[in-house]
């Protein structure tokens, strides 16, 4: 096995035992990137002729282990463009809190940023100004999105591990499509400072990794209260690796009936049912539960998320940074900059968000959506009174073909039907590989838990992983 194919915890052992050095890891990654990046396009600004250089950050626990960062997380002096023309060549003057934490822990920030849907608007990474990323399992398919670049890079061993961001499924759905592990932490668990906001009340940064143990390690590093983020919560961060390997016998698992609907891919259904059987064979007790407001999640999400996005994206006006269209008057400059700088999906969401906040519509849409959001959250609270976790598919389908849904935004929005409620409720959820379709596309199992109970997710996910081999299968590229 090549060095770049190893997990982070395996590499940490080898670094400690001097079986590998930092340089070996970087070289193996470069060789791999040169070989497969032209096919996968996981990185935003990759050019094969450019030699990548990296100053290792070898002090600290992680011994310089490189990490790939999604293009919407600020890295000082490194391009951070949200894969949008409007942020053209923007280099932040500061690091996001998660980047600071990673550096302190001894992680090297990989110099190329991971591809994504522009401003995280999408479920396929097709909405990137830099072009689509391809699914390593089938290059004709999308890797999911919006953190498609991060997931594809990890799946194709172009990265050891990565950070993504999840507003409505943007970590879990691409993790599911690419056969890797992805976690959306509890809202407030990880600082958003330095994450270029899509929807502030829903966004969380989280890990995309090759296995559950890596996810547990990385989550611990990036979590914790940040005085620079009022919405981060001041609560101790446990060592999430402590509970790995703990027995799952007797855990009570809810299976929400609203998530097993007509129109769900039969292959996905089969794989998920097998996964649930597997969990039961390991001693969990599963029963059907109900989340009665599930059907409202998608409309509520697209009201709240676009409302916040329309305001969050107002700052991209050509005045201070990024792209500026030429014009001799201010209003024209604004208009041309934004018309030329934003892609179609960004414009669609800005217009939708502006509409739902407008005078006369606010109560009917935004205020109403906030109320229904509370009902959705209450659904989860009710179930979690009696259950330790809930288990669902991460996505109703496996990875779809590039271009297949691009013309139909509504169909695209339904890709996130199983992941959106988690963001609205603010709870944590993980997606882990749990099998493949007949055509060889990975399927992800989503596990949800109570707020700040990431430990439970890791414990259950780890038990499943240790008793299956899905996470060890690599795509052939």
């Amino acid at each position, binding site marked *: 096995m090549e060095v770049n194919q190893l997990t982070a915890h395996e590499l940490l052992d080898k670094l400690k035992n001097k079986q590998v050095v930092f340089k070996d890891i970087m070289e193996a990654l470069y060789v791999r990137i040169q070989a497969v990046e032209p096919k996968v396009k996981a990185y935003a600004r990759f050019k094969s002729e450019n030699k990548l250089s990296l100053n290792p950050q070898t002090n600290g626990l992680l011994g310089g282990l490189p990490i790939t960062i999604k293009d*919407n*997380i*600020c890295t000082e002096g490194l391009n*951070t463009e*949200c894969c949008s023309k409007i*942020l053209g060549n*923007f280099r*932040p*003057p*500061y690091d*996001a809190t998660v980047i600071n934490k990673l550096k302190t822990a001894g992680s090297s920030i990989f110099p190329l940023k991971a591809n994504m849907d522009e401003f995280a608007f999408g479920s396929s990474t097709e909405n990137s100004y830099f072009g689509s990323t391809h699914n390593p399992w089938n290059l004709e398919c999308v890797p999911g999105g919006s953190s498609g670049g991060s997931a594809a890079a990890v799946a194709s061993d172009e990265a050891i591990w990565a950070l993504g961001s999840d507003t409505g499924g943007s970590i879990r759905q691409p993790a599911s499509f690419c056969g890797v592990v992805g976690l959306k932490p509890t809202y407030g668990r990880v600082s*958003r*400072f*330095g*994450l*270029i*906001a899509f*929807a*502030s*009340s829903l966004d969380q940064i989280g890990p995309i990794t090759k296995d559950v143990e890596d996810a547990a390690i990385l989550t611990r590093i990036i979590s914790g209260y940040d*005085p*620079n*983020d*009022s*919405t981060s919560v001041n609560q101790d961060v446990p060592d999430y690796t402590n509970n790995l390997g703990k027995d799952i016998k007797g855990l009570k698992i809810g299976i929400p009936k609203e998530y097993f609907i007509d129109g769900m891919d039969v292959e996905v259904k089969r794989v998920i049912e097998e996964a649930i059987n597997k969990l039961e064979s390991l001693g969990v007790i599963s029963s059907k539960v109900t989340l009665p407001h599930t059907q409202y999640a998608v409309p509520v999400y697209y009201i709240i998320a676009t*409302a*916040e996005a*329309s*305001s969050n994206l*107002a*700052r*991209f*006006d050509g*005045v*201070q*940074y990024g792209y500026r269209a030429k014009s001799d008057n*201010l209003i024209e400059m*604004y208009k041309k900059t934004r018309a030329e700088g934003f892609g179609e999906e960004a414009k669609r969401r800005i217009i939708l968000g*502006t509409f739902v*906040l*407008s*005078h006369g519509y*606010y109560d009917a849409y*935004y205020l109403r959506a906030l109320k229904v959001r509370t009902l959705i959250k209450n659904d989860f609270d009710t179930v979690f009174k009696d259950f330790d976790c809930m288990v669902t598919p991460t996505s109703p389908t496996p990875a779809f073909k590039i271009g297949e849904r691009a013309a139909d935004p509504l169909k695209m929005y339904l890709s996130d039907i199983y992941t959106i409620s988690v963001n609205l409720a603010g709870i944590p959820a993980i997606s882990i590989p749990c099998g493949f379709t007949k055509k060889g596309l990975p399927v992800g199992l989503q596990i949800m838990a109570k707020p700040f109970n990431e430990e439970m997710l890791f414990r259950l996910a780890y038990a499943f992983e240790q008793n299956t081999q899905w996470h060890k299968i690599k795509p052939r590229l």
Partner: protein
Amino acid sequence: MKYETVIGLEVHLQLKTKTKAFCGCAIDFGKIPNSGVCPVCLGFPGALPVYNKEALSSAIKVALAFSCQIQEYTKFDRKNYFYPDLPKNYQISQFDLPLSRNGYLDIFSENKAKRIGITRVHLEEDAGKLIHELNASLVDFNRAGVPLLEVVSEPDLNSPQEAFDYLTGLKNIIEYLDVSDCDMEKGSLRCDANISLRPEGAKELGVKAELKNMNSFKGVKDALVFEVSRQTELFEAGQTMVQETRLWDADKGLTISMRNKEGAKDYRYFPDPDLTVFIIDQPMVSQIKAQLPELPREKMRRFTQDYGLSEYDAKILVSSKKDAQFAEECIQRYPGKDKKNIVNWLIGPLLSEANFRKSNLHELTINRDELISLIGFVEDQSISLLSAKLVLTQMIDSQKPAVVIIKENNMLQISDTVELTQIITAVIQENEKSVSSFRAGKINALMFLVGQVMKKSAGKANPKVVGELIKRRLTDA
């Protein structure tokens, strides 16, 4: 027909906190443009606002000073509009849940006391500053993010003079709280005025004009005076008013209509998802209440009660916090029983010195103890009141002790009867006419004779003693 003028004022106060409202930048207006800034107040992608506790506490202080009800549950909202001095293209402000409501300010205007309602006091952030020069527009963000307090009055003001007195009273209180410089010329206090007329006795408000661009209290008054006559003329000509914003042109002394904007402004307010709800609990309110300094109204009451001052004198002294402090220090040092004596000095000769020097009472370079000793010389009749006033001037100019100045100028009064009798004898001989007038009962003649003695003694004679001596001489004889 008679018209009633209805005015409401909207005052913005820049709080002089150490740091900005939502970031750690030190506030310093002397800095070169764009040097007192950080990613947060520049609205850089990914940066997040955090509450400044000092700003909130200053805001609560002001609200309490105006007897407002503090709202236990307050939140911040985004006011969305595009303008190049607004880095995020939204302003963090407060919309439907301001931190306080329903206060008042008592004013004394046109010889009557009146209570002016205060609708709300809320906290928001300031914008940057645009500078237009040489065909270019430049923006300085040093001011962006400085905490601004908005104090909105009820439409309870019925004349330009009342508006002026309201502003003076408001400034007085803020000065006591020491939370803002309240300098309209420097922009630390800004005031917009809403004004409408209605037929006397009418219940409904008329169509209002919003006046902007005034840069002094007098400017506010002048603009309102102009507007009253403009609107009266319109009424009398039977024309209908249009609701509009008008700019005050101080040079031309008139208001000019700003071009009508298409439709009403829609700021699309919504709760800022980056800031959590802020709870102002009772202990916090009590703690801030306990820190409130003595306010002008209370000080005035104390001055009248403790020092036996007339309301009129007390009002003059408390109209400036530092002057009141200066006055009180003098009053406390004054050994005499009747404090009125020292007060007469303060609001008499000292105030005229201050006015003459275009400064404030407390800025006069005079040692409080020296002032007391000067007054002592007058009271024990060592010098005349006239001389004392001259000494006072010199004391302020030279900062020499009173006794030194008196000696240098040979100003000690002659109260020695032997010396005075000689001068009086001469004067009586030289002014037979007046002597007989006095004997005929004309009291003015005595004054004339005393004046002659004063003249002969080069002002050093003690006029009281002289008067007594002359009287005794002429009636005895």
